[in-house]
């Protein structure tokens, strides 16, 4: 047990926790006034429900003893055996610290999806869906990659959650919007962000918290943490810049929403790679991610699916790109426990990454479709058109955001 590593992981966990309220702002600023509270609620309430579920059974499903490479067992249910001493295999920090750090990841992942079905989901259905999703999508995914499941065994590299967090939420987002359909007025009315300063602030908080997310994933205050910190920052920086350059060229103006979106795209892309690549490839990944995800958000106008806040375009695409790029740029010089990528002489890694990408997309997409159907039948998943026009704040929560 190491006090410095414990301090680092606990503070990192606090930083990751803050990402969820940050995400709430990031999303909240982009919806219309009448949905601001509903949108803030979608992210923040998961700090409540997911955390409790995680303690009761989720953590165990993800990190309990491996069952066939697929899922964890119930050894850690109710945090049984999760105490102040170290966990087997992570012997530098208290088991509780590891558990709570992972808890924050489990909270924010379904929160990411909420951007897709914003402005039209029924709150009770939403609660049920996210609870089920945690157990049957997130926990298995986390187990596969970080809990000793089949992806880990296959050698897939995912430092801080390119597959577990971003691709999984992106793929689920796509399924969700296909099931749910478009918002009333989509393509006819203008859906304009109602409070961009909130969004910009949210992006700033996300960036800040992401240091906990990625550097904290080193689980120690060492050179690797420093390296992951640096790649994270530089990828975000590069992507913020490249996004506005691309839109400047495409639409004639660089936008602040573009800057914020680009930063998030860069953070997403570097997440799987953060602890495996050196700084210059991180900048390159950021530059590409900014442009790529800009293209990604344009897809929805083209294919006419209503991914309200671009979860598919940014997290889905960005996460996929990051996972593949990890297969290109990873090097053992950064992280002995990692692997070399294509550019370091190991083409196989790219193939492994590719398999993990496909598996993640298929699994999360299909499972989410099924869950939406189940929830829809059980409690309903979309608000009535009347409630949608009134807005989620009034119709779902009996509140209004602003009385200025």
């Amino acid at each position, binding site marked *: 047990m190491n006090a410095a590593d414990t301090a680092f992981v606990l503070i990192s966990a606090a930083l990751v926790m803050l990402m969820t309220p940050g995400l709430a702002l990031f999303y909240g600023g982009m919806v219309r006034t009448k949905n601001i509270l509903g949108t803030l609620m979608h992210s923040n309430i998961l700090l409540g429900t997911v955390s409790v579920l995680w303690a009761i059974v989720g953590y165990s499903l993800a990190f309990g003893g491996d069952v066939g490479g697929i899922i964890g067992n119930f050894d850690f249910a109710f945090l049984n055996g999760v105490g102040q001493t170290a966990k087997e295999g992570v012997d530098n920090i208290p088991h509780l610290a590891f558990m709570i750090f992972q808890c924050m990841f489990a909270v924010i992942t379904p929160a990411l999806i909420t951007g897709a079905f914003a402005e039209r989901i029924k709150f009770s259905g939403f609660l049920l869906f996210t609870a089920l999703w945690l157990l049957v999508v997130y926990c298995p995914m986390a187990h596969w990659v970080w809990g000793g499941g089949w992806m880990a065994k296959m050698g897939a590299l995912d430092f801080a959650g390119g597959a577990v967090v971003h691709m999984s939420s992106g793929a689920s987002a796509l399924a969700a919007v296909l099931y749910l359909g478009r918002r009333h*007025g989509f393509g006819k*009315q203008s859906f304009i962000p109602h409070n961009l300063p909130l969004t910009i602030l949210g992006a700033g908080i996300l960036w800040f918290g992401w240091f906990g997310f990625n550097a904290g994933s080193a689980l120690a205050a060492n050179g690797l943490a420093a390296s992951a910190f640096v790649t994270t920052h530089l990828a975000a920086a590069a992507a913020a810049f490249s996004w506005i350059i691309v839109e400047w060229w495409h639409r004639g103006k660089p936008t602040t929403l573009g800057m914020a979106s680009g930063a998030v795209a860069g953070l997403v892309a570097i997440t799987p790679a953060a602890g495996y690549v050196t700084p210059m490839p991180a900048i390159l990944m950021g530059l590409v991610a900014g442009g790529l995800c800009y293209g990604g958000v344009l897809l929805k106008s083209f294919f006419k699916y209503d991914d309200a806040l671009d979860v598919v375009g940014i997290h889905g695409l960005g996460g996929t790109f990051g996972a593949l790029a990890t297969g290109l740029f990873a090097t053992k010089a950064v992280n002995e426990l990692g692997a070399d990528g294509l550019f370091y002489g190991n083409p196989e890694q790219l193939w492994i990454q590719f398999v993990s990408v496909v598996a993640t997309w298929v699994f999360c997409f299909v499972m989410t479709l099924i869950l939406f159907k189940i929830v829809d039948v059980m409690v309903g998943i979309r608000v009535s058109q009347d409630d949608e*026009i*009134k807005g989620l704040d*009034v119709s779902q929560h*009996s*509140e*209004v955001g602003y009385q200025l």
Partner: protein
Amino acid sequence: MKKIEVITRPYKLDEIKEKLTGLGIKGMTVSEVKGFGRQRGHTEVYRGAEYQVDFVPKVKMELVVEDGLAGEVIKAIQAAAQTGEVGDGKIFVSTIDEVIRIRTGETGNAAI
């Protein structure tokens, strides 16, 4: 000249505006208002305290038109704004004595 005031649902604004520009209307002025009427409001709850809110968000459009145009304009607005549900709103028509265009000093119909 006539002033036509329309009080109606916010999301109908664009549709009405388009209809009107189709009729050759060149200008109008819009504001956000709160309406009280037959349409029910909603309830708000803050820390267990319930408040009944009777006011509903509406837009008010004001447009001044030549006397001759008024009938046509009113018809167009009604058609575009109507949903048939309570809360569609009202059109009020009144008489304007004089109009001045600030930029040029023109008056009367020429100023509209």
